[in-house]
């Protein structure tokens, strides 16, 4: 047996103090009674103010001494050697991702892992420290190098499981960061093994070995893996995918409903491992549609999915040009654009357009909104230097998402304004001589093209409409994207022009206010379900929706991983030592003390 708090032995001084108190006499007030012989012979000192009296045997004294001795024993925190093998610094990595909500172990994988970690905390020795990190996106350090059992238990008890994925790489990087040089550390990974693939480079190994503690036993699960609504000229339909990840055939009922009510109920039978695609009707008036299955399996997060059925609102785009069929056609490819074409002489400026494209024309005052200006005439504020011959073009950054699927290899430009001195923004497409296409984010997303598209074969290449599509989507993303997001995935929301307030109502009814003046990134998407974006402009409130669904094959697969590929531990100059944990028995001793105190109370009331 080990005592975790040997200094508490000093409390034993209370024992002689209790005895001394019994040796003191109390000063008793005199009370005259009519018949003393009727009163029982009962003397007990509860208060001392005279120095000495003859000691007497007292059951109360005995019980009080026993209770005090047991309390002192509990304060010493005696502990028995436990079976766990702990390092001086234990780094506990707890998977808090969606798959840990599976209930194949009672009450859930996450709670089972917490229970095991709680037992580990109890077994920490007086010199041991523990760091607790949750594996989620992003990972979080819950407690760092703490030896306080109570604080660790409290921190553990406050943890909640997320609906997102488990970023093990980031969690291991964090864990490596909290390890001190030369410290004897050991990591304990509590997970079902359903984590994102390791992406960080751990080639040099981690400064600690990792023990994988698998949580979970079963992969039986049927999940709804995707739901999209497609609109054609004739009708709208939803496409739903149901997948049985388990080893047994399952029969279940699919409930298909819109925000207006139930649409259909279908009975489904799925063989082990079978996936089934369904096409489901979507009523014209539906804003959202929801599919739900009564799978009665171990995992509920993928049993209900929601999609937005309402078509996005169109943007008004103005093309100011003396004539440019290439640009006009490229802009009209976007179905949610309503393109108006205006001659430069007719342009008077308007705030009614979400985006304006100026072709070889520059207005006296540029609009405070997204715009594209192509080959600005000399003398205008954005005009470059004199024309230079170009030839081949290239991307400034081949990995720039604005150039996704855009091929520039066979593009030639005859001439362009010299934009070398332009401070408009960063170059997107450039040449040896000068930057050709520049983009900037502030104050609005805007594009400057230094050459007339007619002086290039670019409009004849497939890359041109794709570039226009990419740039227009970047400049005018849908105000609220209508597709489904994964949990914790950020959502870009573009406030409507003139919007005075933008509020996101989460599935649980909580509201988040967003800034109105700029494009906002909304990241509180941890809950599954439909999010409503309310934008108020001119006294009217416009509502749009986006949905968050699990849609994760990895999480729905659910079967815990037997062997998890983990980074190796570094070679240590000295061997890593571990010791047995401690099994604290002080709570039981404290309970005994409580029993003794109750016995003392009973003895007092029975006049012992």
């Amino acid at each position: 047996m080990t005592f975790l708090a040997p200094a508490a032995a000093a409390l034993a001084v209370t024992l002689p103090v209790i005895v001394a108190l019994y040796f003191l006499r109390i000063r008793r007030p005199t009370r005259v009674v009519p018949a003393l012989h009727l009163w029982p012979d009962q003397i007990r000192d509860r208060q001392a103010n005279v120095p000495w009296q003859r000691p007497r045997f007292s059951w109360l004294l005995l019980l009080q001494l026993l209770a005090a001795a047991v309390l002192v024993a509990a304060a010493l925190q005696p502990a028995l050697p436990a079976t766990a093998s702990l390092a001086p610094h234990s780094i506990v990595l707890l998977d808090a991702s969606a798959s840990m909500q599976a209930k194949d172990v009672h009450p859930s994988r996450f709670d089972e892992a917490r229970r095991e970690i709680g037992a580990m905390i109890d077994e920490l020795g007086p010199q041991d420290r523990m760091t607790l990190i949750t594996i989620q996106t992003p990972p979080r350090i819950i407690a760092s190098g703490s030896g306080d059992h109570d604080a660790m238990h409290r921190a553990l008890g406050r943890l909640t499981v997320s609906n997102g994925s488990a970023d093990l790489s980031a969690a291991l990087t964090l864990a490596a960061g909290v390890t001190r040089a030369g410290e004897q550390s050991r990591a304990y990974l509590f997970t079902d093994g359903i984590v994102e693939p390791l992406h960080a480079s751990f080639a040099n190994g981690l400064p600690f070995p990792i023990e994988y503690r698998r949580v979970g036993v079963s992969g039986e699960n049927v999940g709804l893996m995707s739901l999209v609504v497609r609109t054609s000229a004739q009708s709208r339909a939803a496409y739903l995918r149901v997948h049985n990840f388990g080893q047994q055939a399952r029969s279940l009922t699919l409930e298909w409903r819109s925000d207006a009510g139930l649409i259909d109920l279908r009975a489904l039978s799925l063989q082990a491992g079978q996936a089934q695609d369904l096409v489901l009707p979507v009523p014209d008036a539906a804003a959202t549609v929801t599919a739900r299955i009564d799978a009665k399996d171990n995992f509920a997060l993928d049993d209900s999915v929601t999609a937005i059925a309402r078509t996005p609102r169109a943007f008004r785009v103005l093309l100011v040009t003396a004539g440019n069929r290439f640009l006009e056609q490229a802009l009209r490819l976007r179905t949610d654009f309503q393109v108006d074409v205006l001659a430069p002489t007719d342009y008077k400026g308007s705030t009614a357009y979400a985006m304006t494209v100026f072709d070889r024309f520059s207005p006296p005052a540029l609009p405070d909104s997204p715009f594209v200006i192509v080959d600005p005439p000399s003398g205008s504020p954005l005009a470059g230097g004199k024309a230079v011959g170009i030839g081949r073009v290239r991307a400034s950054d081949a990995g720039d998402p604005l150039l996704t699927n855009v091929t520039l290899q066979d593009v030639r430009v005859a001439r362009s304004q010299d934009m070398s001195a332009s401070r408009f923004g960063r170059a997107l497409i450039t040449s040896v001589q000068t930057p050709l296409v520049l983009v900037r984010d502030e104050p609005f997303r805007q594009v400057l093209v230094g050459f007339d598209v007619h002086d290039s074969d670019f409009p004849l290449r497939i890359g041109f409409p794709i570039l226009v599509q990419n740039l227009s989507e970047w400049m005018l993303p849908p105000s609220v994207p209508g597709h489904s997001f994964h949990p914790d995935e950020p959502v870009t929301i573009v406030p409507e022009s003139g919007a005075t307030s933008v509020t996101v109502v989460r599935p649980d009814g909580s509201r988040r206010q967003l800034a109105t003046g700029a494009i906002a990134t909304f990241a509180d998407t941890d809950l599954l379900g439909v999010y409503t974006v309310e934008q108020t402009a001119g006294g009217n409130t416009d509502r749009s929706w986006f949905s968050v669904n699990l849609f994760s094959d990895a999480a729905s697969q659910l079967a815990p991983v037997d062997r998890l590929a983990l980074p190796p531990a570094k070679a240590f100059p000295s061997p890593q030592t571990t010791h047995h944990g401690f099994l604290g028995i002080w709570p039981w001793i404290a309970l005994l003390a409580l029993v003794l105190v109750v016995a003392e109370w009973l003895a007092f009331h029975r006049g012992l």
Partner: protein
Amino acid sequence: MDARLLEPSVLRRLDALAVLVRRAVKGQMGGERRSVSRGRSPEFADFRSYTPGDDYRLIDWNAYARLDRFMLRLFVAEEELPLSLFVDLSGSMDWGRPHKAQTAKRLAGAIAYVALASLDRVRLTVFADGPTSGGAPYRGRRAAQELFARIQSFPVGGPTNYSRLVWPIARQRPGLTVLITDGLGESPIEPAITALRLARQEGAVLQLLAPQEIAPDWTGDARLKDAETAAEREFTATPATQAAYRTALAGRTQEVEDAARRRGLRFARLTSDQPVEDMVQRTLRQVGLLG
């Protein structure tokens, strides 16, 4: 001082009461009580044969005409009731709120007044360690104030010794004896009650307690001091000790009641917070001592 013992308004209401006895009594002087002796009164009692020496004025001549022999008409004699009051003024009575001894004096005064108003003879004795006579017997309503003054003059204190009441009780002429006491002395009350029986007394034991001794209103540590013997003892009051005390008190009062009832005495338990008028009008009428 007399006026303080019993208020005039109380006395006026006591005028309507009388001390009740279960059987006829024999007193020394005429009174309003039915006597065991035959005497002059309107109430016919019996006949008996004439013997020389009898008062010939009592011969029933109508009976002589019918029976041809002398018969005497006998009438119920009405005599006074000898009432003896024994009042406990020991140290244990010097206690309580209201004060037990003062309440006992008022109660004795009230019973005495009822008796005096009925032309009964009242003898007063107070006792503690021994009996102390209250003087010559009192008779007549006018003696009430004298009796009140006398009863007020007695000091309170000392131990209780019931056995020393045996002689004064035993020498009583048959009549009614009322013993007012708390019954809490260390010596047993049994000898005094037995003496009442042997003296052919119609008796009544009135046990008077204070509310604070029935339900003690204090707890904690104390040095207990006996009101009679001044003996002291250290003590810690707990719920358990209070319960033990109440059990002992109940046992003691039950002993007193059982002893009284076994010997055919009337018994009443009174508390000092009970108004004397209420004791007399209600409790003593219920037990048949007054009517």
